[in-house]
């Protein structure tokens, strides 16, 4: 288990070095995107329209932040991760098309995303669910917001971060998935728990 400090844009080579259980901190550009923003980005790609920002080598954060406006400036108040599995239906295409290297969220993602991460070179960094103030502290600036019509939580927030983390590498680019490992172990434990509680199967 090693700790890495990465700066965007992150290269595929840097990503390939990372293994599950490693800890990562990210400095540079992080974009928030939830269901609606993923959907629109893929739609744009399909129509040949350009995204507001080139996502290659950047980090995408599954997050619906609380943001307030002070004068002309947006301030991130709280920015914890949202449940990533909802984005499983978009993420493989997203990684393939936009070459995003880091996906940040909570709860892990499924096989489709894991396969895409292995194929195109990306990782999933688990950020502590709900640790919104810790996240906000590492976000130094809101560069801009796009697609605000989707609503505050669903908009495409383009953020500048400094040592954003700790992110636990939960899916690496070698096909390993920490959440799946835990699930397998939990399934094994189920039997002994039933036994202890006197539950017949």
């Amino acid at each position, binding site marked *: 288990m090693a700790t890495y400090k990465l700066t965007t844009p992150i290269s595929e080579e840097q990503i390939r070095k990372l293994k599950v259980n490693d800890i990562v901190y990210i400095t540079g550009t992080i974009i928030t995107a939830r269901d609606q923003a993923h959907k629109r980005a893929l739609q744009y790609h399909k129509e040949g329209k350009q995204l507001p920002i080139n996502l290659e080598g950047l980090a995408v954060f599954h997050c619906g932040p609380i943001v307030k406006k002070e004068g002309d400036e947006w301030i991130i108040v*709280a920015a914890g991760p949202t449940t990533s599995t909802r984005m499983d239906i978009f993420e493989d295409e997203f990684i393939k098309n936009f070459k995003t290297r880091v996906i940040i969220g909570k709860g892990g993602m499924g096989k489709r995303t894991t396969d895409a991460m292995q194929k195109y070179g990306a990782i999933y960094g688990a950020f502590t669910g709900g*640790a*919104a103030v810790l996240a906000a502290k590492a976000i130094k600036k809101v560069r801009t917001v796009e697609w605000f019509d989707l609503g505050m939580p669903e908009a495409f927030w383009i953020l500048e971060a400094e040592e954003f983390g700790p992110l636990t590498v939960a899916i690496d680019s070698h096909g390993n998935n920490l959440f799946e490992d*835990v699930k397998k172990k939990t399934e094994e*434990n189920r039997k002994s728990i*039933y036994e202890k*509680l006197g539950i017949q199967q």
Partner: protein
Amino acid sequence: MSLEQTVENVAVNLLRLAVTELPKDVKEALQKAYQQETSSAGKTQLKAILDNIELAEKTRTPMCQDTGTIIFYVKAGAEVKNLDKIPNALRNATKRATTEVPLRPNAVNPLEQKNTGDNTGRNIPFINWEIVPGNILEITVLPKGGGSENVCTMAMLSPGEGIKGLKKFVIDSVIKAGSKPCPPNILGVAFGGGADIAMKLAKKALLRPLTQPNPNPELAKLEKELLEAANSTGIGPMGLGGKFTVLGVNVDYAARHPASFPAAVAFNCWAARRATARIHPDGRVEYLTHEMR
């Protein structure tokens, strides 16, 4: 000041306190979990949680971006006048807190799929009423996070299987929920009554402090058993593996129909937020879960 105005001000304070500072019992349970967790990934998560709640408290900002669906529990003394004004006061307080704290606008009209923008909507904030003897008004707010709400379970079990069936249902619910409800969780478990009653009791059980033992020894034993079982799953903090999947299990029940055995499990995330205050007849306000700063 009118009761309506007092209730509004107190409720704004309660919302602010609840989302920025965890009650002492939850904080201590998280600290204990951090000290005793043996999985490194789990420990990293608990450390981030503790750092986060400390920062939230210091900067008085919401500890989680999901400031929840706003639910109130009102214990009204039967002698308190103008109780009919309270729903409006709580509604106004919710709107005010949304801009003043701020809270994330979390009330969506499900027909139009449109966010109302101020955390109020049809039946929201929801108010649970209880009329008790006396002249004191006790208000509790439970800002309920969506991630943990999404894994709540309810089932009509087979009466023949009894408590064993209940235990299986609880453990299956915990395993199925996995990482989703932001563990370590607090579980509210209830059985009997009817489908709605079981879930209502389960959710209300989330309000009992972790340090307060169940007065019913049989239920206390069941809670301990369920806690140990849930913590043997290996799910761990944030589902990354470890021994702290739940911080506590609170159980309640109601008498059941001979043909039914309803059971419900309400999940609360590690950000198990709640705040309670009492308004006395002379206007004095007493905050029970937090120190008013």
